[in-house]
């Protein structure tokens, strides 16, 4: 059952101090309200993965990894490969994260990222068929939150899309008689085919102001957030409102404008890390 989360006590005490700083047009770390913290990307953290990317967004750290395996297609989609996205908030990342299977927040994060990547057709799943109707590539995208200092969805989205773009399909041979596929991970059959890049911009409502990329302390006093996923071609490819608060129609329009401009910038940043 989904239950109202407990609000941590420290941000409540600091609430007025944070609101005062935001009212002046700045984050508590002195950035303008609509700017992101520095994005750092470290590739190949886990060399055994077919791709792995550590993204640092300020003090937030997210590790995304990809494993590509041979599997069966979904019966209702026999002509496409399979993408499976999972996320885990590891207990090392925050005193409030507990060990155990992914909770509703982790599931929601994984599903928002899954939908944005799937619906935008960012990964060319139609090019991942090995034996039509029987054998396809299964792309496992697993996201681990290593350190939580706010804005986990946007950081996860950056890590995910870079991990997918850098993923190498293992070398493979198809036995023409039996249809069995043998793979050799020491060699590569090329990069996972991508159609386009996707980024997400989450707009948080703190008091009456809209901000992006809050720290954990700021995020804890936000009443609601709206994640908007933007594709390279300028379309909206996913959206999710979270939190106990609300948005007016006007605020959603503002959030859309913010996400279109910031989303484009994040995609440019991603391109820089890919080149």
């Amino acid at each position, binding site marked *: 059952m*989904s*239950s109202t989360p407990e609000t941590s006590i420290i941000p409540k005490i600091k609430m007025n101090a944070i609101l005062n700083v935001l009212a002046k047009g700045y984050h508590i770390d002195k950035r303008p309200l609509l700017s992101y913290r520095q994005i750092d990307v470290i590739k190949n953290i886990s060399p055994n993965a077919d791709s792995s990317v550590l993204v640092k967004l300020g003090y937030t750290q997210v590790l995304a990894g990809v494993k590509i395996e041979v599997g069966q297609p979904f019966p209702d989609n026999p002509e496409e490969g399979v993408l499976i996205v999972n996320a885990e908030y590891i207990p090392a990342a925050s005193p409030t994260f507990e060990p155990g299977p992914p909770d*509703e*927040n982790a599931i929601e994060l994984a599903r928002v990222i899954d939908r944005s990547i799937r619906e935008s057709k960012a990964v060319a799943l139609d090019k991942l068929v090995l034996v039509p109707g029987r054998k396809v590539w299964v792309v496992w995208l697993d996201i681990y939150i290593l350190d939580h200092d706010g804005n986990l969805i946007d950081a996860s989205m950056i890590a995910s899309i870079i991990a997918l773009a850098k993923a190498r399909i293992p070398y493979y041979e198809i036995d023409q008689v039996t249809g069995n596929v043998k793979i050799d991970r020491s060699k590569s059959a090329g990069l996972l085919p991508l159609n386009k890049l996707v980024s997400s911009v989450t707009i948080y409502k703190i008091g009456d102001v809209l901000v992006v990329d809050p720290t954990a302390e700021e995020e804890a006093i936000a009443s609601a957030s709206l994640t908007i996923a933007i594709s390279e071609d*300028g379309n909206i490819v*996913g959206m999710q*409102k979270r939190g*106990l608060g609300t*948005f007016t*129609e006007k605020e959603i329009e503002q959030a859309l404008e913010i996400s279109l401009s910031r989303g484009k910038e994040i995609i440019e940043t991603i391109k820089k890390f890919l080149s």
Partner: protein
Amino acid sequence: MKGSKPQLIAEGKRIDGRGPADLRQIRMEVGVLKNADGSAIVEIGNTKVLAAVYGPREVVPRHEEQVDRAIIRCRYRMLSFSTMGERKSPAPSRREIELSKVIREALEPAIISSQFPRTAIDIFVEVLNADGGTRTAGITAASLALADAGIPMIDLVAAVAVGKVDGVIVLDLNEIEDMYGEADMPVAAMPSMGKITMIQLNGVLTPEEFRYALRLALDGINKIYSLQKETLKKKFVEVEE
């Protein structure tokens, strides 16, 4: 693709004969369960959802209670035989876990939870028959059930999905339109407050299409909102007589 995609729009009409901005037939009823403090059934086309509310009541386990407010707990489930095609496993799916959270967050802004500290308000949404729009029908029903339970709210919450099928922005998608369409966007709002409490988008829209779709959703929500109010008024008039 998932089988062959049917033609969803022909001569401006949708697969079930509706125009793009038409809602399906809606039926609402409150007080359908004896034991629950509040309950409601909402039918929209072939989608049928039951919502029940218990509370404010004691929090079990005790440590989950909050000193300054009631906690809201919500569970969204689909009955195993409610879906088209195969039986749905009764084990909670990732989708149901996400939707339980999304529905809770759509309703929480309306509930004046500070009036009942150290208590829980439990909301159960059971999908009896699924034909698209189960989460939105669930929110509409749960909001009625909360009102039926006498829980103070700043407004009712009404919800409906909009989407894009065969390039046309349409209101209130059914299952076929959701499955084969290009986008599905459920929206919930507190109409009198002008506040949106839920918005999700699964699919691709241009910014212009999104703006139009949101307008269309809010218009649909207003119609559902009037029906909610009528349904609640009818119940209390009946009691008076």
